[in-house]
């Protein structure tokens, strides 16, 4: 398997830190802004900063919605990071209700402010891994990753929820996964050694569980 990472640019994200992290773990990447740029890509990363509704609108305008779904349907590895993870869902409330990619069943809603100290949930937090996955190799449960988010991914199917982080009275969804699709609510590219390990493992992954 020749690994070549595509990093989706929805014209609103900070891509440089993700591209740098992919480079640091030894792999080459390309920014993907249009469908043709998926050619030759083995692994797709959907980074994300911004709002759910706007991101989905950009994805459709750039004609990437169906190609990304087809990429995942072919069993190729897809990783959503932060907002990118939320876009994997069925739908999201941020910026008004919108459909997501529908790759992992669930709805993204605002974290209940009554149950947490503050919104956004920002900083380092422990992630408890709930299910084994090839991408978690050599990463222990209970280690810290860096979060910045105000919305939470509610999984429809318990088996898609792979990791959580306790925040106030809420267990926020930290990792989702289904088939060749994986999502991290935290930023692996900003999470030091453990984050880089996850990114390296993702690039080494063939999409099978």
């Amino acid at each position, binding site marked *: 398997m020749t690994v070549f990472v595509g990093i989706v640019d929805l014209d609103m994200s900070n891509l440089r830190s993700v591209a740098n992290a992919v*480079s*640091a*773990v*030894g*792999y080459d990447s390309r920014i993907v802004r249009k469908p043709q740029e998926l050619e030759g890509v083995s692994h797709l990363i959907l980074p994300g900063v911004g709002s759910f509704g706007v991101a989905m609108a950009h994805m459709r305008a750039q004609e990437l919605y169906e190609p990304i779904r087809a990429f995942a349907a072919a069993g190729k590895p897809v990783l959503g990071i932060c907002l990118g993870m939320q876009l994997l869902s069925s739908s999201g409330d941020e910026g008004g209700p919108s459909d997501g990619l529908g790759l992992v069943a669930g709805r993204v809603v605002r974290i209940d402010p009554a149950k947490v100290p503050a919104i956004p949930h920002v900083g380092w937090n422990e992630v408890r891994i709930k299910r084994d996955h090839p991408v978690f190799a050599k990463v222990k449960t209970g280690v810290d990753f860096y979060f910045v988010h105000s919305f939470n991914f509610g999984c429809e199917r318990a088996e898609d929820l792979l990791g959580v982080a306790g925040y106030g009275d809420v267990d926020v969804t930290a990792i989702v996964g289904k088939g060749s699709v994986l999502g991290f609510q935290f930023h692996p590219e900003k999470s030091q*050694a453990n984050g880089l390990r996850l990114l*390296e493992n993702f690039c080494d992954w063939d999409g099978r569980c």
Partner: protein
Amino acid sequence: MTTTRDPLPVHKSSGPTCGSCRQGCAVDLVRCTRCGLPETYETIEFDAQGVCNICRQNEFKKEQVDWAARGNEFAALVEQYRGKHDYDCIIPYSGGKDSTFTLYHMVKEYKVKPLVVQFNHGFMRPNLLKNNERTFKALGVDVLSFTPNWRVVRRVMLEALIRKGDFCWHCHTGIFSYPMHVSIKFNVPFIVWGEPSSEYTAYYDYRDNEIEEVDETRFNRFINLGITAEDMAGMIKKDFDFDPRDLAPYTYPPMRDLKRIKCRSVCLGSFIPWDARKQSELITKELGWQGDQVEGMPWSAWPYEKIECYMQGVRDYIKFLKRGYSRTSQMTALDLRNKRTTKDQADLLVRDFEGRKPPSLKLFLDYLSITEEQFHEIVLATVVPPHKPDFATIGDAPQTWDYDHWYREKQPLK
């Protein structure tokens, strides 16, 4: 060469004591009730019984690490890399007991074809060179040796001594970075080191039950004293003329380059229970490897220890001045942990041999172009409290047999 007699060092006076040693130390230090290591030892902590964490992690090593599983893990690792590149692995090699055993073990037990990589720190001793030739020829291995620019070595030794009270920066950074560069250049992504640091410090604790990866994290954690090659360049450029590339051997290669070749760098001692004494006996028997006299140590107790560098005596002497203990204490601590000696015997050796001024200090001062007074001033600035050195009561260590063979510097450092 003989190592049959242990001439006692010259004592100047009985002086104040710190419980174990007789001289050179002006305060009592808290010590581990089991191994005797003092509170000034790197990474040490004591529990409610007064036993140190180094002792506790070694208990874990003996009683709780699943060495059979570790052995299987290592065998699988060797197979993962076997036959895929020009060499099956790189073995960084000084010629001391640990790297010689590692090379022997990998060739004999695992039948690998290794590339032996040697970083010459500049102070290799005659007996070591003979050992190396004998070992390389007996085992039939390819060897790559690298010697860095001596003029630069002198200057960075001085800088590291001034800033950290540890002149061995060039040696330690070079030893741990150069083989990584070779790994990339020769595309040999498996590197096997010898002794894990958990044997003697707690930067990596056996109780974490993890494999100690010999990587950039470890390099920055304690190998490079917190001084990168880029830092060093900035520190010396004000008064020293050099090419920035002169410091390349001391840089750690980019993570990306190591990841691209899927480099794995581990200690053999993470997979088999390390036993320096037994392993030394084995290489002596199988390879004719010979121990040596080392300044400031009793010559018959541990003839296998630290024979690879004729500045070892200075290193150990500085350690004593800074921290109030030295190599003899470290060795008696190991023997006490392994129940190979008694506290009384250990105390006697420490009292008689530790903290004496080595003859090599004179050579060292010439390398750095400093006087002994300047040396004292520099070292005093890096003393680890509550230890206080007492220069007035320090005696002299005897010369080793090869002292006259060691390099003399006639040119001032500039």
